[in-house]
């Protein structure tokens, strides 16, 4: 069904400029499956449950249309090939994979870790990590292997380097400057509201003001 949505989208957007179109296609590219075994051809049983005798004409029509839709999509609908994931028989490797894959990003579903993601690529990468660990590679070597191919973006926790200084330390800079401004503001206010004895000049002016009020006597 994902397919039909995408295709429908392309049709309705046909009139838009070429640039918009290609951009949309791009976003349609990296789909994140909800289950680990995406099969988009799963619409057929729906058709089989509808029958003319039991449900009458309107439903039959609906069913026919649905069937037509499914059939028109079916030739294009092929699931991505995914080998079944076989956990390593070595519990140490499995534990290492668990902790390491929590620090790595799935490139397909970018807000998921390699440990969480059901995407095919994530499963492939987990399989590759198992192979490398079995071959005796350390966690560091595995991470180096992955960053050489996918870049630092695959690290869920970004490295501390000059391009990420702002990311790592920016919040602290904001916090400190915020605190500074806050104290500055509080100090200013406190200066404003604390009682101070009047200076000679101020006292004279106050007396003048009071004297100018009618019906009052100066002290």
């Amino acid at each position, binding site marked *: 069904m994902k397919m039909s949505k995408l295709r429908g989208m392309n049709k309705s957007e046909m009139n838009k400029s*070429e640039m918009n179109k290609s951009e949309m*296609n791009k976003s349609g*590219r990296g789909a994140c499956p909800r289950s680990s075994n995406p099969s988009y051809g799963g619409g057929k049983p729906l058709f089989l449950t509808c029958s003319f005798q039991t449900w009458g004409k309107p439903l039959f029509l609906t069913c026919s249309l649905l069937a037509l839709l499914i059939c028109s999509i079916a030739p294009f*609908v092929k699931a991505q090939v995914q080998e079944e994931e076989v956990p390593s028989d070595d519990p140490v490797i499995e534990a290492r994979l668990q902790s390491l894959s929590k620090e790595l990003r799935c490139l397909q579903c970018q807000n998921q870790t390699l440990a969480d993601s059901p995407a*095919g690529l994530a499963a492939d990468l987990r399989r590759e990590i198992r192979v490398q660990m079995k071959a005796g590679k350390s966690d560091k070597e595995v991470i180096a292997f992955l960053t050489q*191919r996918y*870049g630092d973006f695959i690290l869920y926790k970004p490295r501390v380097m000059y391009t990420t200084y702002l990311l790592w330390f920016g919040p602290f800079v904001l916090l400190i400057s915020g605190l500074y401004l806050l104290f500055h503001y509080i100090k200013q206010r406190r200066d404003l509201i604390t009682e101070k004895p009047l200076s000679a000049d101020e006292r004279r002016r106050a007396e003048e003001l009071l004297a100018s009020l009618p019906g009052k006597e100066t002290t």
Partner: protein
Amino acid sequence: MLRYLIPLVIFIVLAVFLAIGLTRDPHELKSVLINKPAPAFRVPQLKAADKMISNEDMRGKVWLLNVWASWCVACREEHPYLIEYAKSGVVPIYGLNYKDRREDALATLDELGDPYIASAVDFDGRVGIDFGVYGAPETYIIDQGGTIRFKYVGPMMPDVWKEKILPVVQELNRQGK
């Protein structure tokens, strides 16, 4: 007066940053393999399973490696254009059939035509990992010496072909002469 302008300035700065953010596609990742040697592979060909194909076979010429699969919707979008590009003969296009089944892949080529000189088979996605593939379609431009010079993520529509792919190919061909 100035103190009332400060929130406005902050707002404008924020709005500009957010507007720039909207135009960027977070799925478009810069490849770290640009200007690095293309990863070596030696795998069976799609149409002739008994024959092997290796990146060494293409040494000495500029070529495109197009990652595709029968299950990939965006690949279908780009397919008719790929056939056109292949016909134009500007640059040889090789395929990397990524995480696919042989019968599905062959059926797709039968149905839509085959723009590829040959397709390398990567059913388990292992070659894809070496290339840093994270979806399909993806296209790599590889130069005479086997170095990756450019990577395009997503379908190569005619505007992309004209503005991004062709200039790089032509430049590489000129340098090679």
